[in-house]
């Protein structure tokens, strides 16, 4: 996996779209998470909860899209130090999700350059689903 050079504050380093969240994937994650909440697989329960007519993606899964694109940019999963997200809106099956990250600070640490990022996930054509902050270390780089 290629590693990025050290970015500058204000650089947008992640700009990606996850196309068409799939029912099958939401159901697979319900099993992996041991998540019994029926809004992820039972459309009658979704309707009863007033959440529309499509299965609702797990908040952790939408957060995972963000984490994945951040570590892909940073050179791998080992680069992640932290990610802190607040959940502001739901993502449903069929939605496209735009994932973004902008550099807010760069500091030298013992093992490289630590980069702080403002991160988010938006439903394309809809509202913000997730907003947060991530920190990664670009190993061996100088700030």
């Amino acid at each position: 996996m290629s590693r990025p050079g050290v970015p500058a504050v204000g650089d947008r380093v992640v700009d990606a779209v996850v196309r068409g969240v799939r029912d099958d994937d939401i159901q697979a994650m319900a099993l992996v998470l041991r998540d019994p909440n029926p809004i992820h697989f039972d459309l009658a329960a979704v309707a009863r909860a007033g959440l529309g007519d499509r299965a609702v993606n797990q908040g952790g899964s939408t957060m995972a899209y963000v984490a994945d694109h951040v570590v892909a940019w940073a050179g791998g999963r080992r680069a992640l130090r932290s990610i802190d997200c607040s959940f502001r809106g739901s993502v449903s099956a069929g939605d496209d999700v735009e994932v973004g990250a902008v550099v807010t600070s760069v500091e030298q640490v013992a093992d490289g350059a630590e980069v702080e990022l403002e991160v988010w996930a938006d439903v394309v054509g809809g509202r913000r689903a997730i907003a947060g902050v991530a920190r990664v270390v670009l190993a061996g780089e100088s700030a």
Partner: protein
Amino acid sequence: MTIPIEAMRDEIGGRRLPGGTITVEPHEAFIADRALRSTVEDPADAHPTWFVIASLRCLGITVEELCALAHQGPDDTLLFGRCRIDQREPLRVGGTYEAAATIREVATRSMRDGTRLDSVEVEVVLHGGTESRVEAGSVTSVYLFKRGDR
């Protein structure tokens, strides 16, 4: 009637939950990578979301039992408010981890429409993956209880 926040704080703030153990099974890591549309191919280091998976699977109580601890009423709505992963080391595919779970902060605030919104913060710390049983990281989750009776 919703429990007063001071009483709930005294009752569950700082409470240690049973915790648990999780193994990042290779087949589940493979399935999760695809379900999460991972763009990173790494057969050794697990997707960071495995911290979240571990935090849900290793509380030692069910989400329903957590709701009961927060005195969730029939008109209250549970929301997942916030999640923070602190990763010291990626979880290893095939690795086994012990989880210690603790209820940290219990707080409340009022929404614009006057609805009471209580929050319960749960921290899960993971150790293991190697023989040295070092801390791999932690997950802090904030569960929100939107109270139906103001």
